[in-house]
């Protein structure tokens, strides 16, 4: 139910409640609502849950999770 997966935003259209975009999940395309990510831009990775983007992936933090191990 809380399954949410990262995808890459390829296009953006519409406004407010209807703001949406094409998102690629390793080449599989889906239309995704972007109303909750007004700051999202083409090329960003977003976390998508039941057809709606809920956050932007932070590339630095994503890297850090893997680097943390070296400091243990």
């Amino acid at each position: 139910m809380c399954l949410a997966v990262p995808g890459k935003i390829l296009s953006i259209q519409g406004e407010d409640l209807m703001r949406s975009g094409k998102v690629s999940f390793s080449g599989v395309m889906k239309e995704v609502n972007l109303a909750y990510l007004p700051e999202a831009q083409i090329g960003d990775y977003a976390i998508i849950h039941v057809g709606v983007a809920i956050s932007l992936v932070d590339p630095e933090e994503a890297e850090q999770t893997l680097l943390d191990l070296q400091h243990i």
Partner: protein
Amino acid sequence: MKYIDEYRDRQVANEYIEAIAAIITRPWTLMEVCGGQTHSIVKYGIDRLIPPEITLIHGPGCPVCVTPIHLIDQAIEIAANPDVIFCSFGDMLRVPSSTTDLLNAKASGADVRMVYSPLDAVKLAQQHRDCQVVFFAVGFETTAPTTALAIAQAAQLGLDNFSILCAHVLVPPAMEAILSNPDHTMQGFLAAGHVCTVMGYQEYEAIATQFQVPIIVTGFEPIDILQGIYLCVKQLEAGKAEVENQYARSVRKEGNQHAIAMMQEVFEPTARQWRGLAEIPQSGLKLREKYASFDAQKRFNYADNLPELPESLLCISGLILQGTRKPHECPSFGTACTPEHPLGAPMVSSEGACAAYYSCRQ
């Protein structure tokens, strides 16, 4: 897939397991709250790879599993109306009610449809203006903003043929309920990363302090879960009880303000019955008066939050959801109860502990 594969790396996982083993000095019991985490833990065998001092208890984090039986009964009755198109997520269609399930209702002629998103249900309402489209809205704070968005879209489009049967539940009140039980054995929590993606994690700081438990906001891939366990054990060994964010690539402390604002615009908290548990105060969401015309219970004249109906006598799902029994300890597991013929909800959803054990451990 980018941002997935690197968190499944076997070698990194092994290094984390060694790191946990190096700091642990005594037994600890942790609960992962979210069914998505339970699924990963069982699928990748994380519970068998980590040091034996750690016991992982699977929490009630499967919204499909905790949706009360009487609401599923109402869903089936509503779906039976000839002008209704009834839709929900796939798993909801197979959850046993007191007598049957929505897929059987479909086989008997009801128009029951699986949708991927609540927004698809709004599109159905646009396409079928002569029908009533009802969406069975289940899920935690991860999903509730999308239902809120569906309601807002329907209001903007002036759709008078769209409504929801609302079963949304909230995670922090359930965590407090579990911790308030004097018999609980939990010493640390892995909090649900996608719930916190929406809500942030400020709310958890009061819980960590009040109950003196470390709470680690954790993601869903094996490396995320192992790092969450590592951080939790590290705090426990040091006698700390703080909130830490393992899943920072997705979770910000303040959450997603736009999603929270929409959720608060459309919903307000209410007491909610949890299947297998009990009624938990302020643990559910209901539509605000302003949006009452989208409430399927009002539209079809049903009462909200009725007393819960008894579970099949052969099913111990209440104990599974409280974390006091493991699925294979249920006498019906894999015999009377299988994913093809589930007796209880945790055998239906892929995030239900029983289904996870059945598909990965048989």
